[in-house]
């Protein structure tokens, strides 16, 4: 679906991320992990064309994305940035903005747009917040409304930058379940996650980054057994067996 070929780039012409090669498949959640400042967010920004690559290409279904017009690109790839100021609008209006890439020359939202919004509110269970200003919602509720906006945008590829950070644990799982549901509908999901247990639990593919490079890439089990997590994060990892599934547990290590 989406492929990065020797991608290099960063802010102000730096090479914050170097020679990234990766492939993201349909019906899969790829989780990018790595220590702070390793270039995870920069990589996402390069992928949504917020930053211009110094070299390399981003291929979507086999063709380069750089010549795509803005709106067409926004109909294919959606992105939830990490740091956002809370906009002063109702949750319903926010979700409606997800339809902005589909606005025609009449510049009016159509019945189809309102239906997509209704559907997104339904899937995320945020219909009840429709008329409530965003600044009155809790962090978790707000995040679900943002996901609803991305669902309304209805793109094949969805990029998320730490969608669960600062959320209470039940919101983290609720959000990840919504994301899993999107995967099952055939979306390609790429997300940066801080929480390693959550990352390994939900990922189909894990990319581990360090100092601007991809350290390793593979299934959660492969990554865990490669010892790369221990090396990159300076921790010690154990797998504990629960009656349901093997959960990974992380312990800090004194060096």
């Amino acid at each position: 679906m989406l492929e990065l070929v020797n991608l290099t780039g960063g802010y102000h012409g730096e090479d914050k991320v170097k020679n990234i090669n990766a492939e993201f498949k349909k019906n899969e959640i790829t989780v990018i992990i790595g220590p702070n400042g390793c270039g995870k967010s920069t990589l996402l920004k390069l992928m949504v064309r917020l930053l211009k690559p110094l070299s390399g290409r981003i291929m979507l279904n086999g063709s380069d994305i750089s010549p795509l017009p803005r709106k067409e690109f926004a109909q294919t790839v959606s992105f939830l940035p990490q740091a956002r100021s809370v906009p002063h609008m109702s949750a319903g209006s926010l979700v409606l903005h997800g339809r902005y890439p589909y606005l025609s020359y009449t510049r009016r939202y159509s019945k189809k747009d309102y239906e997509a919004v209704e559907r997104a509110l339904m899937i995320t269970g945020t219909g009840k917040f429709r008329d409530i200003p965003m600044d009155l919602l809790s962090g978790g509720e707000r995040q679900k409304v943002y996901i609803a906006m991305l669902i309304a945008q209805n793109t094949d590829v969805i990029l998320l930058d730490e969608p669960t950070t600062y959320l209470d644990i039940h919101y983290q799982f609720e959000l990840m379940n919504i994301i899993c549901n999107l995967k099952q509908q055939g979306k390609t999901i790429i997300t940066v996650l801080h929480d390693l247990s959550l990352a390994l639990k939900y990922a189909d593919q894990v990319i581990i980054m360090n100092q601007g490079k991809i350290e390793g890439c593979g299934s959660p089990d492969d990554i865990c057994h490669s010892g790369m997590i221990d090396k990159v994060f300076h921790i010690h990892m154990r797998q504990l067996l629960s009656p349901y599934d093997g959960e990974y547990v992380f312990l800090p290590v004194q060096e």
Partner: protein
Amino acid sequence: MPDGVKAMNIFQSSFMGANRRSFCLHPSKSKRWLAILLLVLAVIVILSLTLGSVAITPMQLAEIIKGNDKSSAAYRILLYVRFPRTMAALLAGSALAVSGAIIQAVLNNALASPNIIGINSGAGFVTMLCMVAFPAQPWLLPPAAFIGAFLTALAVSIIAMKINASKITIILTGVAIGSILTAGINTIKEISTDVLVGSSSFMMGGLSYVTNESLHFAGPYILIGLILALLFCNEMNVLSLGEDSAHSLGMNVKAYRFILLMIAAVLSGAAVSFAGLLGFVGLIVPHCVRIFVGEDNKKVIVACIVAGAIFVAACDLLARLIFAPFELPVGIIMSFLGGPFFLWLLLTKRRHINA
């Protein structure tokens, strides 16, 4: 997962169609506000046409509108004094209020307004240069004011972008540029012998010198600016999501910022070209309006057009009446009335004002 799946199933089995109306936040409430505002505007306009150092009775006004009374003194006062003055108040008020709302949206900054970030001073400086250099070319004033306003807006936003400025730094940049331009204005004022240029009316903002001619030149700029502002409401809303989100929704953020700043500059430039440095209206009217109609920029802009006109026309009316037959520049009344009113709003409805 169960939640999401359940929701999907509910959606697939029972969902029929979406209701458009559901997206208006209290639609009836905002319509009611608009109706009230329009009513107040009508009253203010009638008062503004009839009251002044020579009062015109409503009967005379009706006669004049019917066209029966073309020779009287009242007719000439109405046509050459009251009408341009009232129109000037309405146009300047709408233009500056909308300009303020746009600038607040573009810079995503509640403290911004055309006077605070120096746009009015830029317009005023170039207007004054123009008055001194080409005293016989009144049609030059609105485009000159627009150029001044636009260059200032551009300078502030480029500097802000270059240094990756925080909200406060943008304001400080604007204040610094504004003070340079105000110094320029004061220099021209001191060394020029022209009466109009030297008057405090221009500095404070005043409508006493407005003629039909000056409106004739500036009016079209304002009307076009207001229409454009209404067209780009949705873009302003998308911009308020933040640069990254707006970009990932397919918006050309830089281009729209530039266009919106141009519109704001046209509006405040045109207003400054005939009304002088009217300050406060661009800052407080958008805030007051948001308290009542919410944050949707479409409603904010519509309400700003009406409320800005009301505010300036009402202040101008008082400026004429309080010490009649002497007049105060309208800017003084605006600050005296608007300041306390704004403070009252801050104290009672603070939640709505997000600085």
